[in-house]
């Protein structure tokens, strides 16, 4: 044995180590590849040896080769071997190699689970550290699930070095295994207050990463972070926390106000930190720009907070001014950061940035591309009707000057983005826009031909007034097609011809000379275009042909028509031979048609009408999301089986039968699809792999640059000057500048006219009103479009569902992490632990206990606490309910009493809210219930109760109808209703208003009158009852005075209110109960003194149930929540005791509903 070791180490002396390898590669510059391949062979030999030192050395060399681009995944197993060495030196080499080349589809990762677990619990903290570092790079969902519990234990390790690593890696674990977030969160929160600053920083880091994607779940941590911010000494932590607050303040406006002061105190520290960084970078002395940095920081903070604070526009104004100085600074980093900050302000306060347009345009000339791109980004938000043309003109100049295709392409897309934003809102003259698009087609080597084409199509289709002009322009474009297609390298731009051909064909009735265009479209050169464009050419040539025929209709001289047919017959055969099937098919079809038409023409038969009928009808634009929004018709269940699924029992028992009956179609089908899906996935993967490996697949864009520069310029495209008086009928390509001039003249004229009118007005009426118009420069509304433009909106299906949830990318791993963290942990939510070998795991007893604390004890405590709170709330609530009964007339008298809170509250309530039930019609004895109804404060109603169509699909909406009754003798007006949104429930406010704006109630109340208003709330989770605080403000007006009054109230969203009365048949009910998915629970009501049918009616009425079946003193009832939970009840009565056994698929919801039922009966 000893000999073997000696031998091994002697061998080793002759092996190359990493340094030798590097030296060797440097000495073989000419035949590097060959040298490396011999090295790899050596490494393979070394890996075959038993000596772990030799193996580790080989793996270390492989890591180096990996950096040079060599695939070393073949050595994955050897890497695992080195990882499992007991020596730290080798272990480290192994983990490094693994972190560089392992990924999710590396299959040997499965083998590492136990090794990693062993390393994690190693007594040597550096073994653990190395394992954590490695794991952070290659953690897979399986590893995350298996090791989550071990890592969580490490979060309480005695060594801060391990704690910080364990905390940090939890983020990766959450991403791969989202179920671990809730159980691990309490401990993560604990780590925010860890004594070690490194651990604290790691915890802040992780929570900031989590909160960035789902900020609302972390709102409850705000006080803790606030404390950290004021106490922490770590600049990194501070920056992270400030960023986090930036995400939280829009959700909770009060935070913003609270933050201002401590932040101002912090500025000095942060500014020193930042100035140090910049000091390294820049030759300028510190003093010179130190205050700039301070402002930069202050501004960033203010901006992140400003979105929650509407009345800070003054300070924002100041910020923008200071930012200007930053941007004008010579230091490029400051300039960049200034622009970045500016774009953040732009989002919330566009007006204040817009005045610095000149500066931004200046930045477009900067030598630094990063700064130019930033400036471009800003311009997008700065355009208005007034300055659009000017800005685009500047950009067009830059397009001409720009070097490098990337920047030019960026310019192009930005121009189009700017013009087309919010449905062409800022375009007043579409002729100008079309000519801009046409000018853009002259751009050399752009990749964005397709984008230009789609814009042309969109404008021509949707802006009817522009079609005449567009068609003329497109015809010229088609005529000059050789300019665009002259060079095969410029394929990108020929996409434009697709649009041109289609527009000319579809709107050919506007063409001046269709015959000419037809000729242009059938030139032999067209055959060199890509197939899909040729196909459009052919199809639209047919449309043009139809137009030519039509225009010649009634003309005695039929030569033009015949010429057209002849032209088609002459030229189409070229397309019939096309290699592209689509082109071929269309061409041969149309060729035959034309031949037939020619025959008819020769017989002098009128055919134009029939030919035109082929292309009759208008095509409407369809919104891109239209298909998705088609509502599912009633009664169509897409998940239901069309044929009965094969039952599992028939598999083995019936096999002998199959021999006789040969094939069982039912049986084979699903199996077949399964194979198919796997196969598909495999193929998809293979394709992806292929694309990734194919160097041409990615290289294409950047490398093409050189070729383009050699192509001849396009200056010689005929540019015809426009006759300014008749802008609509311009032959040739007009320069957009002419339109700018024209537009300016037009606006001036308009302004002059307006002034005249204003003057007249002022003469007539010498009031102060006229001044407004005169004072400033023209405002947005003053600019009228050049001609009345009717922008056709895109079509949506009837009954389209309003849904905004399609914004988010479903592939985003953070979506799975959108988890409510405030909810107490359920028993089922535990991290998987290896139970049967638990004794082996090294754990100090203290840790063990702590672990339990987190996962089981704490939640119990919490839940009991919550129950108590709930109870308290209920008591309070009952009070409030009564309070609402008290009349308004009492109100004023005791407004200033503040001694006894309760009484004060009582007196303050001036409003009576009445439950207004939409389900009245379901029940017989309405009268009896009415009195009870009056007792309830609030009213929630699922939206679909009225609606005939969309009901359960809108599982997140609740409509609250409130009846306002004026019980005093004064007049009530300007009522505004506002509710403080909670995380779960939000009042829906009209678009454009902030999250805390109040809603104006659209009516006034004379004395003694009542009226109803409805408010829509969105609710996320419906399993718990909720209370929302709100205020109603209004003006009380009587003869002598009017006073402003405020009324606080609470809306109680009971769980019952989320239930919808849904009829259920007894067989379906029985099936539901048998399914076994439902959790059961029960309550007992004592001393109920009412007939059974009254009792049932009461449950039906108050809790939205329907009776499924009733037998004597026993009845089954059913209801369904707006989110589709089934709730089943079995109610029995025997001598004043009612027992309710209930089942539901959501135990929390069930518990709450039962509580509410109990309460209903305890009240009577």
């Amino acid at each position: 044995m000893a000999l073997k070791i000696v031998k091994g180490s002697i061998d080793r002396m002759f092996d190359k180590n990493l340094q030798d390898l590097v030296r060797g590669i440097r000495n073989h510059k000419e035949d590097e590849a060959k040298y490396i391949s011999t090295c790899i062979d050596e490494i393979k030999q070394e890996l075959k040896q038993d000596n772990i030192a030799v193996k580790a050395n080989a793996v270390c060399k492989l890591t180096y080769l990996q950096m040079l681009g060599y695939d070393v995944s073949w050595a994955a197993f050897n890497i695992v071997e080195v990882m499992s060495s007991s020596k730290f030196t080798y272990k480290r080499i192994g983990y490094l190699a693994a972190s560089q080349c392992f990924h999710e589809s590396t299959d040997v990762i499965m083998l590492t689970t136990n090794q990693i677990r062993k390393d994690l619990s190693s007594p040597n903290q550096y073994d653990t550290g190395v394992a954590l570092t490695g794991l952070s790079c290659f953690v897979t969902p399986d590893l995350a699930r298996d090791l989550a519990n071990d890592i969580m234990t490490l979060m309480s390790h005695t060594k801060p070095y391990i704690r910080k690593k364990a905390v940090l890696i939890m983020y990766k674990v959450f991403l791969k295994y989202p179920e671990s977030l809730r159980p691990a969160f309490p401990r993560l929160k604990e780590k925010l207050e860890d004594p070690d600053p490194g651990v604290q920083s790691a915890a802040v880091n992780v929570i900031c990463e989590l909160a960035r994607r789902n900020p609302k779940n972390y709102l409850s941590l705000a006080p803790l972070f606030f404390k950290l911010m004021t106490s922490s000494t770590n600049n990194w932590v501070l920056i992270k926390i400030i960023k986090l607050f930036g995400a939280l303040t829009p959700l909770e406006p009060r935070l913003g106000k609270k933050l201002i002061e401590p932040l101002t105190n912090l500025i000095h520290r942060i500014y020193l930190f930042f100035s140090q960084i910049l000091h390294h970078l820049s030759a300028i002395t510190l003093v010179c720009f130190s205050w700039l940095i301070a402002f930069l920081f202050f501004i960033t903070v203010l901006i992140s907070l400003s979105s929650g604070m509407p009345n800070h526009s003054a300070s924002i104004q100041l910020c923008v001014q200071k930012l200007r100085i930053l941007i004008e600074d010579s230091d490029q980093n400051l300039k960049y950061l200034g622009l970045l900050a500016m774009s953040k302000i732009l989002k919330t306060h566009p007006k204040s940035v817009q005045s610095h347009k000149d500066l931004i345009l200046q930045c477009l000339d900067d030598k630094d591309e990063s700064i130019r791109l930033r400036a471009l980004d800003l311009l997008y938000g700065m355009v208005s009707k007034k300055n659009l043309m000017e800005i685009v003109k500047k950009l067009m100049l830059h397009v001409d000057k720009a070097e490098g295709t990337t920047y030019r392409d960026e310019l192009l897309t930005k121009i189009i983005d700017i013009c087309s934003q919010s449905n062409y809102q800022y375009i007043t003259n579409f002729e100008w826009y079309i000519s801009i698009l046409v000018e853009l087609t002259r751009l050399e080597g752009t990749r964005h031909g397709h984008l230009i084409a789609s814009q042309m199509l969109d404008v021509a289709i949707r802006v009817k007034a522009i079609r005449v002009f567009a068609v003329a322009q497109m015809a010229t474009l088609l005529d000059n097609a050789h300019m665009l297609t002259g060079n095969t390298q410029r394929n990108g731009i020929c996409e434009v011809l697709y649009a041109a051909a289609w527009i000319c064909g579809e709107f050919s009735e506007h063409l001046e000379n269709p015959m000419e265009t037809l000729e242009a479209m059938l030139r032999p050169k067209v055959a060199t275009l890509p197939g899909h464009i040729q196909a459009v050419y052919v199809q639209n040539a047919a449309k043009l042909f139809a137009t030519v025929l039509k225009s010649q209709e009634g003309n005695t001289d039929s030569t033009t028509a015949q010429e057209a047919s002849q032209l088609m017959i002459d030229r189409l055969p070229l397309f019939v031979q096309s290699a592209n099937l689509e082109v071929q098919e269309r061409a041969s079809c149309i060729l035959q048609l034309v031949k037939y038409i020619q025959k008819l023409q020769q017989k002098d038969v009128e055919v134009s009408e029939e030919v035109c009928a082929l292309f009759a009808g208008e095509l409407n634009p369809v919104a891109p999301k239209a298909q998705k929004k088609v509502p599912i018709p009633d009664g169509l269940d897409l998940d239901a089986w069309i044929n009965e699924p094969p039952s599992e029992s028939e598999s083995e028992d019936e096999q002998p039968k199959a021999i006789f009956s040969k094939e069982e179609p039912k049986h084979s089908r699903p199996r077949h699809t399964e194979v198919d899906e796997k196969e598909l996935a495999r193929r998809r993967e293979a394709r992806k792999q292929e694309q990734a490996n194919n160097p041409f697949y990615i290289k294409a864009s950047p490398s093409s640059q050189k070729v383009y520069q050699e192509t001849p310029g396009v200056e010689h495209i005929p540019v015809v000057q426009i006759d300014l008086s008749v802008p609509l009928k311009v032959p040739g390509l007009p320069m957009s500048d002419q339109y700018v001039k024209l537009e300016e003249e037009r606006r001036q004229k308009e302004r002059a006219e307006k002034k005249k009118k204003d003057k007249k007005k002022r003469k007539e009426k010498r009031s102060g009103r006229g001044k407004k118009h005169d004072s400033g420069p023209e405002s947005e509304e003053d600019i009228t479009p050049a001609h009345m433009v009717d922008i056709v909106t895109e079509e949506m299906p009837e009954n389209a569902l309003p849904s905004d949830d399609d914004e988010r990318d479903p592939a985003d791993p953070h979506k799975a992490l959108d988890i409510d963290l405030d909810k107490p942990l359920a028993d089922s939510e535990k991290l998987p632990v290896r139970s049967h070998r638990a004794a082996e795991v090294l754990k100090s007893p203290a840790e063990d206990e702590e672990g339990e604390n987190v996962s089981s004890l704490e939640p119990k405590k919490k839940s009991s606490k919550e129950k108590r709170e709930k109870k308290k709330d209920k008591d309070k609530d009952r009070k409030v309910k009564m309070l609402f009964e008290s009349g308004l007339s009492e109100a004023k008298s005791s407004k200033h009493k503040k001694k006894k809170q309760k009484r004060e509250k009582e007196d303050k309530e001036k409003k009576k809210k009445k439950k207004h039930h939409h389900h009245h019609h379901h029940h017989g004895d309405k009268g009896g219930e009415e009195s009870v109804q009056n007792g309830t404060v609030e009213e929630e109603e699922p939206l679909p109760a009225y609606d005939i169509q969309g009901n359960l699909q809108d599982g997140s909406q609740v409509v609250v109808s409130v009846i306002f009754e004026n019980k005093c003798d004064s007049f009530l007006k300007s009522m505004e209703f506002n509710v403080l949104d909670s995380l779960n429930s939000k009042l829906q406010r009209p678009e454009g208003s902030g999250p805390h704006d109040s809603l104006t109630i659209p009516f006034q109340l004379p004395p003694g009158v009542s009226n109803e208003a409805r408010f829509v709330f969105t609710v996320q989770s419906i399993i718990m009852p909720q209370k929302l605080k709100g205020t109603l403000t209004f003006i009380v007006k009587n003869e002598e005075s009017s006073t402003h009054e405020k009324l606080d109230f609470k809306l109680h969203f009971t769980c019952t209110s989320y239930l919808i009365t849904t009829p259920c048949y007894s067989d379906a009910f029985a099936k539901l109960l048998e399914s076994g998915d439902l959790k059961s629970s029960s309550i007992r009501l004592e001393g109920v003194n009412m007939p059974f049918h009254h009792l049932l009616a009461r449950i039906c009425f108050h809790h939205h149930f329907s009776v499924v079946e009733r037998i004597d003193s026993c009845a089954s009832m059913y209801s369904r929540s707006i989110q589709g939970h089934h709730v089943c009840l079995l109610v029995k009565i025997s001598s004043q005791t009612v027992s309710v056994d209930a089942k539901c698929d959501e135990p929390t919801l069930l518990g709450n509903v039962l509580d509410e039922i109990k309460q209903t009966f305890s009240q009577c």
Partner: protein
Amino acid sequence: MIKAILIFNNHGKPRLIRFYQYFAEDMQQQIIRETFHLVSKRDDNVCNFLEGGSLIGGSDYKLIYRHYATLYFVFCVDSSESELGILDLIQVFVETLDKCFENVCELDLIFHMDKVHYILQEVVMGGMVLETNMNEIIAQVEVQNRLEKSESLPFILH
């Protein structure tokens, strides 16, 4: 989050690559080439931030880089990182290298890529900033180096 850390010299030769998201080897080389192309054509007096770089990520990502003598240090980060903060981190990393290698130069990185990795592992872990305190980083690196030395003592002593 940091998506990748690249160190290459003035000719685009990689000296250290660390991707925190999986890319196949040839893709990694593409990214290095593209990043080098983007970074190297920029003057030394322009800003240290760079947007775009189509390969490594969408609009949320930017490159933050610094040029020291013959080496470029490039960090690719998303919007959750502070721009100036990352610049500072690069400085911390380079100063740490300087302390650990005693006047670091490109040759140190060439011949001791593994050591550079070990130092980086103490600064950034799985794409997240682990430690920014230089003394702490150096202390941890040194302890581990001592541990390694103690293990490589001649086998006869065992």
